[in-house]
């Protein structure tokens, strides 16, 4: 192998290794200064919307021993309505159903909404949709946030549920 060829071989190997090193940490821009995000994230135990009655003695007799629950209930978890308004304009208006086959799982809200930095009048309302005439004793039906938010460039404004007050609050403020 000639000296020139050895030099070329070394130079190529070095160039390839440097290419690997550069591509290993290629500088990229993910978010710009005019990007920001409104993030909603919380979990609630959904309200139960069901009617229960005791099983009759005949019904209990007809069931296998391990299935003899004293009550039979019809219904499931309540649906919830999520409304998000920015400066009075609705950006989200959805109905959220409880998870699980019987609708008895907790309800999770997780939404990302793109924003531009600036000041907004933000209103978030999250409330149970109950059938007409359905009475609930003492349970919290709605959770809400209503206020001005200042959004800095690249900031993630997080609205979450305060476990002590059961109100929607802005986290990190």
């Amino acid at each position, binding site marked *: 192998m000639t000296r020139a060829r050895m030099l*070329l071989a070394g130079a190529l190997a070095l160039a390839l290794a440097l290419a690997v090193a550069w591509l290993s940490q290629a500088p*990229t821009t993910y978010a710009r200064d005019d990007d920001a995000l409104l993030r909603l994230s919380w979990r609630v135990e959904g309200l139960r919307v069901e009617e229960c009655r005791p099983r009759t003695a005949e019904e209990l007799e007809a069931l296998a021993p391990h299935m003899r629950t004293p009550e039979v209930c019809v219904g499931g978890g309540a649906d919830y309505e999520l409304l998000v308004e920015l400066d009075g304009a609705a950006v989200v208006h959805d109905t959220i159903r409880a998870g699980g086959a019987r609708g008895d799982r907790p309800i999770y809200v997780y939404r990302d909404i793109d924003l531009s930095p600036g000041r907004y009048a933000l209103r978030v309302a999250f409330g149970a949709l109950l059938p007409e005439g359905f009475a609930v004793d003492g349970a919290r039906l709605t959770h809400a946030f209503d206020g001005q938010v200042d959004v800095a460039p690249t900031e993630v404004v997080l609205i979450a549920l305060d476990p002590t007050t059961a109100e929607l609050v802005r986290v990190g403020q």
Partner: protein
Amino acid sequence: MRRLLRAAQRAGRGLFARADSAFNALYTWRYNPLYHSGALVVACFLILTVTGLYLLLFYRIGAPYDSVARITDQAFAGRWIRTLHRYVSDLAVVAIVVHAFRMFVQDRAWGPRALAWVSGVVLTLVFFVCGWTGYVMVWDVQAQLLAAEGARLFDFLPIFDEPISRAFVGDRPMPSAFFFMNLFAHIAIPVGIALILWIHVSRLARANVMPPRPLLWGTVALFTLVSLAWPATMAQEADLLRLPTDVPFDVFYSFPWPITRALPAGVAWLGLGGLFAIALSVPLLTRPGPADGRAPSWVNPRFCTGCEQCYHDCPYEAIGMVRRDDGREGFVALVDPSKCVSCGICAGSCAPMGVGPPGRTGRDQLAEVRAFIDLAQPSAESVVLVACRHSAGGRRRSDHATPVFPVPCVGALHTSVIEYLVRAGAAGVVVVACPSRDCWNREGVTWFLERAYNQREAELQERVDRRRLHVAYVAESESAKLEDEIAGFRASLEALGGGSAEATIDIVALCDVPEVSVTEVEA
């Protein structure tokens, strides 16, 4: 789809032919990294294990970012070791891609090699998962994006009760348990990689799992040097309440995420799943049809002397020895068709010419070379090229001065063919082989050389003047190099004079085969 894959194979073969040629010119075929891509992955894996063990000493799940920053501050060790760990993991991805693509274009994924292909695809996926966990360990802005996108995709699947994306919203500090699980995965996955690697090479005899030492240590030295000169820096720490702006992006591991992020999670899964399914089904899609002449080898028990040479030479452990049941003493070779890739190397290994794929046994080759001599009529100055069809010789045009006798692989070539050519009056024979580490049948070149020069069973007879034989290692696109080799060989033959044809050429199968002669079988 089959047609598309065949077209991709053809295009890829052309690409590799040019790249091989360029790398051979610079590094010689012995140290061409393109020929050692699979072994380089294993070498990278070992380097990653060693450097990873060092990094593990200093990593803290309670303060992931700070502990990695402390490692990076260790000017004499931690900084370059962490960098080496990172760059070598990237090199591993490059080597995996080259290796997989090479196997694909060389049509080495179907049939008995499907296990190696499928395990290779799984290995690749597992390697990526290991890499992603490694990046999450640092908990910088790239880790934040990786974790968030991974969580988004997993939330689409009905696996978790609670969306795991909620773990990355920033309403509470990231729990140590998350980093513990991630660290556990990053350490446990390599154990799985070692296991799958074992499966990957389990059907290969004498698997080459390490590159040649100069290439191995050259790679270590080169990447150590680059790690010292250009160490990986720390990106900004992850802040879940802030969108990352400047992200140092590892193209080798993070390349799918900008694409998936732009897609709904279901579509992203469909795309990723579809790619994985296509990769897994390559053995099915590239499987040759029955008309392609790649039937498995078979043994004619009448000729088999039980010498075990085909059993030793088979690169895929497809031949076993079983006790004879024909009244003769000893053992007879038996081919397992489910492991045979029809490479024909057994045909070259069998002195009495009793084994090989149908139509390609030593006896078939002798019949072929006789017909070739009748047709080509080589003169006393002719140099016959016995050319592997994957080498540059396979593409060379035949002419009277240098007639070409094509063979599927020089390892499948029976040495009696060379003897026949020399005794038929050719001035010389050039065996045109692929560079040995690029043999499509793994060990074809190695066994041919052993038979031609080192008396390995089915050896080239001593009466053949070795000065009339030349072996040229030329990749597919190295036509110019082949011409140089032919010219050089011709010059060396001048001192010997022209070839002399024998009136009667009796090729003797040396092993003691009862009541059988070559003439009888050919008849």
